[in-house]
């Protein structure tokens, strides 16, 4: 099953003849410590600027219909199950950045597409302090991998956060958490996620299989007209049924202070390069962002073979910046460390994927207190 041996006479045949199974079996099914049931939905959603677009995405029993889909949050070491029941055609879920076996990787041409129901199963690898070879804790996302160019733009994605195991040498304070097993503590109450996304309205009128039969659907032309910052406070999403979850401001704890610092998770959910700039209340570049992880893996000092690899911050070399560049599907984890209270700003720019020209920008305040 995991090795596609079928051969195809043409690209049209390959694009239009993906293996579609009604109810594939979850092999070696375990008792999960964390599980979720997800379904597909299609509906018109209201965006932060009042615009309404048809969105396809995922919903759970309690999430309502929103964009992005419900945030999933398993822990390292847990057996995770996601029972997925698509509708209006076959879909899959790819757990972007998680690395299970091919059947649970959610890609049609290396396993199968789901017509009925399938329960994905995987176990996020536990981290080990000081070891750069182990550990899955970090920021990810999940998305449909069928006609992905269209389905991901239609909104078939959600945030996936993997929390670390707690190691005795790295205990956690009340109200705090660590981003990875030996990472710095952060404040749970202000943890936020920022998800740049953009909409090409032409695409939101297409059908499930647009382009797969060889017709020119223009899917090589992504020309967004609307630009959004999705996300918000991870602890307080609340009811977003019928509308998008939109980021309007970012809280940040002043450091040093009574509370632990704020963690900002970043996920590029569109097809364009983004660049972001942090500025202080006076509008000057502010190096308040400590970049601690990328694509679910911490930055570490790996210079001494066999010796513990400390996280960059703990090794005396924190990666502070006022500017961060990141392209499609990349994730960054950032500890915000504003030295004083006040209204900082985060400006996010979208760039053309060929010329690099700035297409749009959005600014949100960072309220440091």
């Amino acid at each position, binding site marked *: 099953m995991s090795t596609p041996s079928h051969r195809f006479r043409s690209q049209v045949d390959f694009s239009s003849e993906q293996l579609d199974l009604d109810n594939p079996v979850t092999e070696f099914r375990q008792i999960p410590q964390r599980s979720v049931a997800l379904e597909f939905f299609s509906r018109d959603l209201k965006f932060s600027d009042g615009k309404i677009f048809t969105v396809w995405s995922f919903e759970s029993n309690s999430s309502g219909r929103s964009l992005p889909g419900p945030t999933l949050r398993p822990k390292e070491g847990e057996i995770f199950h996601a029972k997925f029941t698509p509708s209006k055609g076959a879909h899959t879920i790819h757990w972007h950045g998680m690395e299970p076996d091919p059947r649970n990787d959610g890609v049609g041409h290396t396993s199968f597409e789901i017509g009925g129901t399938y329960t994905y199963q995987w176990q996020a690898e536990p981290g080990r302090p000081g070891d750069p070879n182990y550990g899955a804790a970090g920021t990810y996302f999940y998305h449909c991998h069928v006609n992905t160019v269209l389905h991901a733009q239609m909104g078939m994605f959600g945030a996936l956060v993997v929390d670390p195991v707690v190691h005795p040498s790295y205990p956690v304070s009340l109200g705090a958490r660590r981003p990875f097993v030996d990472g710095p503590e952060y404040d749970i109450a202000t943890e936020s996620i920022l998800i740049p996304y953009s909409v090409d309205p032409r695409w939101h009128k297409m059908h499930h299989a647009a382009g797969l039969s060889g017709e020119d659907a223009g899917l090589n032309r992504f020309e967004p007209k609307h630009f959004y910052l999705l996300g918000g406070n991870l602890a307080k999403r609340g009811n977003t049924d019928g509308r998008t979850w939109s980021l309007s401001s970012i809280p940040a704890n002043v450091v040093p202070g009574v509370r632990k610092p704020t963690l900002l998770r970043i996920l590029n959910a569109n097809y364009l390069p983004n*660049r972001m700039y942090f500025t202080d209340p006076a509008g000057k570049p502010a190096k308040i962002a400590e970049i601690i992880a990328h694509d679910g893996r911490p930055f570490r000092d790996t210079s001494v073979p066999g010796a513990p690899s400390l996280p960059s911050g703990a090794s005396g070399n924190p990666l502070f910046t006022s500017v961060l560049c*990141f392209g499609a599907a990349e994730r960054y984890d950032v500890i915000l460390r504003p030295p004083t209270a006040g209204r900082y700003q985060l400006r996010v720019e979208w760039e053309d994927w060929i010329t690099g020209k700035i297409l749009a920008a959005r600014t949100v305040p960072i309220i440091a207190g």
Partner: protein
Amino acid sequence: MSDHQDNRETGFASGEKSTELAAAPGHLGRWDFLRYGAAAGLGAIALLNSQPAKATQVNRVVTAQPFAVSPIPGVLDLYINEGYLRMVDRSLVYHRGFGDRPSNLNDFSPSLAVTPKVFTADGRLVESRSYPLGAPLPPHGTPQPFGPDPANPGQYYIRRNYWASYYPQRTIIAEVGGRIRIRIQNRLSKPHQFVLHGAGPDRSDVGTGSIDPGGTALLELDTPAPGTYIYADPTNAPVERVLGLFGVLLVVHPEHQWAIGEDLASFERQWLWICHDVDSVWAGIEASGGTVDPRITKAVPRFFLLNGRSGFESLGITTDDALNLASEEETLISGYPRQLDVRQFGEGSELGTVRGGQLVRMVNPGIVFHQMHFHGNHLWTVGRNNYNWPRRNGFVDPEGHVVIQQWEDVVELEPMDRKDCIIPIKRPPDAINPVWDARTTDWEYPMHCHAEPSQTAAGGLYPGGLVAHWTLKAPIKGAAL
């Protein structure tokens, strides 16, 4: 119907003249293929009666017979040729390229890319798809392991300094200590250049200067430092590059053939991945004698290629065995699972680890900001643009890129960028134990660009664009402990 099919499958009719871009009324000509390339595979028949013959103005050097310059020992002759290449949807698109034999526009198989050549340190020029010269060839591109890893059941020790690597078309390899000697003949009607970007003193560009139509130029230089370099025609940038005038120079230290360079990361074998994006409209303008102004005619790539192939052809799942094998050898990463420690890839050691990974050199002569996403394993990025990244004391550069060796599942690849990454080829970390322990087949994982419009061909046909996969080989019966 039959005329059309013949043209698509066998190239142009034998009686065609090189300047006959326009079709006779009622026939689909080359120009029609250009304008309607994406529709050619499906709706071309409708064009036969609905489109008038297209008058074209063509101005190019036409030769009745290809001619070659007299060879000089140790000198690589490249010819700036033009011709039509079949895209993954079977449409034909006009291209230019640095070929290694003279060919004409109407050739069935024009020479638009060099078959890999090696400049050796001792002054020889050798044609070889594999390097190091004389090293054993990995079957189907897959290095066979040394043997089971007793400390890690189901995993293997790799062979160090043993297997050759295969390289794609457009690759020129040069060994440190030697000289690079390239003679370029311009067989087209406009001036062109050949430039090795970053290969000159202090990483400056070095090139031939403008070569007039019919003219020849010789470029000679000492082999630069180990690394990857893009060669291209910078004329009217990026237009000539998009039309196909590009390739990659890979420089290797002859005493460190299985390492990025002295005291740098070593590998079991390496893979050279060359990205390219094809704009049919630009090709059509140039084929008809015009000159593209990229400020006026915005680039809209329609095909996205990795090592010259897209979609199911890049994935090696066609009915053409030879094409599939070439993809397996040149593009489709494969290996046996091994334990690995990213703190030690053999830098500066005699033997290094017996558990190393494979090196993926990603090179983007294209014009799209590619985002190379690997399923199954994160990659360890060791450097960019021939700068080895530090393992400690990293920093964020003024553009906002984090500069330190790091894990990534999406590797940014801006136009003209080159990234060196180690793929560990290790057990996928989030697979549950019972599934891993019961594994009897190869496990395949996709690699694709996550700037998703690059996953299309001719406006659709997902996944028909810049895509590949990598294979974690099944246990060897009787060998696994």
